[in-house]
């Protein structure tokens, strides 16, 4: 009974598509059985809203009079350094960029209350931000200094470009050392007093299409409150990790590079996040629709929290020193109960990725599709799959050494 995306889009245009979220579908499959549900259901929507570090935005601010060449110069936006290695007025702001000499970060652990991600959030919220640039000046771009307010609607292009989003599964972080540590997984108390996890679990986009059968280059998605696209697999994509019999990876696996028009996004779905003692990152809302083309795809989307397994990793000593030990494997259901047991010790848990917001994204995407406002796209090329041999490698340290001269 294989369906095609074209057939599904036709139903969407007619307002007849049958859509469920990845949470609702669990009950639907249980009630109707896989075969019947696969004939009935057209699309399953997924969602996630969590910190996604490798995110950024690029824009073209337009030319000043006289012109300035910011490319190759020094640029800040609200005192946060922007990357100016492109053409004259093309800039990029990275989520993790920090103001130089920010007094809030000078004393350990540091608050990191404002960085690139907050600049992006402020722009999307329609606020004025201060652009300062100094350039070396050329004949065609004689201006050497610029200090002006800018806002999103005045920019030419403004795009969200995130080279690593929607991590498929992630570590459960604990701290075995005897002092408090401050990490990208939050504040971790000593002697494994708490465990933090970061996953949307049964709502997560890539965990609902674990072998990347439907998500590929060009897949249209919910991004930051607007529509965006999957551009390719993301950095650190690692499809070859161990998986359960249902194909769900038990270690951090696939990632996505995504793009979208920043002007159509909303600050509800793009939030600057400050991690004490660690830094700044962008919390991004991503939602991916999964076309139910056959029974296998539907089976994957009916995955539930108790079938998704995360590895418990020590961030006190093991993680910083690249030691691969996994202390335990726990299910997302166990994590969400508030407590897990590791080596006989009860550990209280907390999440970093908002399940409540992920649910809202999946429901929003479902509404867009039901109303005919969102059509599915045919992927142009697949992401590297579990059997592709694609691997996430560590850095092979080859330190620079001075050349010894022959005497």
């Amino acid at each position, binding site marked *: 009974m294989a369906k095609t995306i074209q057939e599904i889009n036709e139903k969407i245009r007619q307002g007849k598509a049958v859509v469920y979220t990845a949470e609702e579908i669990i009950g639907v499959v249980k009630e109707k059985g896989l075969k019947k549900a696969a004939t009935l259901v057209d699309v399953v929507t997924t969602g996630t*809203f*969590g910190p996604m570090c490798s995110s950024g935005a690029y824009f073209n601010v337009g030319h000043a009079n006289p012109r300035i060449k910011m490319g190759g110069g020094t640029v800040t936006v609200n005192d946060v350094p922007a990357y100016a290695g492109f053409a004259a007025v093309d800039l990029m702001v990275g989520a993790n960029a920090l103001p130089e000499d920010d007094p809030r970060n000078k004393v350990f652990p540091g608050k990191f209350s404002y960085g690139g991600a907050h600049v992006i959030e402020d722009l999307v919220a329609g606020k004025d931000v201060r652009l300062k640039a100094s350039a070396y000046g050329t004949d065609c771009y004689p201006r050497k200094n610029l200090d002006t307010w800018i806002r999103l609607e005045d920019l030419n292009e403004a795009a969200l470009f995130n080279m690593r989003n929607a991590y498929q599964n992630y570590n459960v972080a604990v701290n075995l050392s005897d002092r408090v540590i401050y990490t990208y997984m939050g504040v971790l108390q000593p002697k494994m007093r708490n465990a*933090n996890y970061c996953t949307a679990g049964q709502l997560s986009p890539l965990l609902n299409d674990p072998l990347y059968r439907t998500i590929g280059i060009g897949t249209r998605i919910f991004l930051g409150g607007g529509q965006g696209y999957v551009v390719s697999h993301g950095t650190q994509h690692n499809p070859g990790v161990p998986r359960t019999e249902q194909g769900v990876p038990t270690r951090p696996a696939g990632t996505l590079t995504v793009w979208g028009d920043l002007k159509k996004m909303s600050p509800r779905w793009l*939030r600057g*996040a400050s991690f004490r003692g660690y830094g700044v990152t962008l919390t991004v809302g991503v939602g991916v629709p999964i076309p139910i083309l056959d029974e296998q795809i539907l089976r994957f989307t009916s995955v539930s929290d108790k079938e998704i397994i995360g590895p418990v990793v020590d961030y006190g000593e093991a993680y910083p020193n690249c030691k691969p030990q996994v202390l335990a494997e726990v299910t997302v259901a166990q994590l969400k109960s508030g407590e897990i047991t590791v080596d006989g010790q009860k550990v209280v848990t*907390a999440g970093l990725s*908002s399940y409540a917001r992920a649910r809202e994204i999946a429901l929003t995407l479902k509404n867009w599709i039901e109303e005919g406002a969102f059509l599915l796209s045919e992927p142009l090329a697949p992401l590297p799959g579990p059997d592709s041999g694609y691997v996430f490698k560590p850095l092979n340290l080859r330190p620079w050494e001075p050349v010894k001269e022959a005497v």
Partner: protein
Amino acid sequence: MSDEKVVLNFPPQIIDQPIIYRLIKERGLVVNILQARISPNEWGRMVVEIGGNEAQLDAATKFLKELGVRVESLAGEVRWLEDRCNQCTACISACPTHALVINRAGMTVTFDKEKCIACELCLSTCPYQALEILFE
């Protein structure tokens, strides 16, 4: 006889001294430890309720300050800013009195001000500045 809630911050060099013992034994105060976090080589922090007459409380404050302990009255109020909250639930595991709790069905956060002892542990866990403490 009055009870005062105070926050005591101990510099790392004196965390091995039996200061609370001396408050009780030598100064005759009734001390109830509500919350304590002492780790080697770090500032220690305690939220205590101290009972005694005004003279005793004044003398106690002087004694503590002479030792280098920072004494702050717990007149602070923790505020949860619902419109800034992303419902990520990172704060839940930090709250010792369950003032911050999670509704497991909706995976949403709620804050019960009555249970809050302003220990400030949640503040460092919130990435979105949805928790703040205001001092009188």
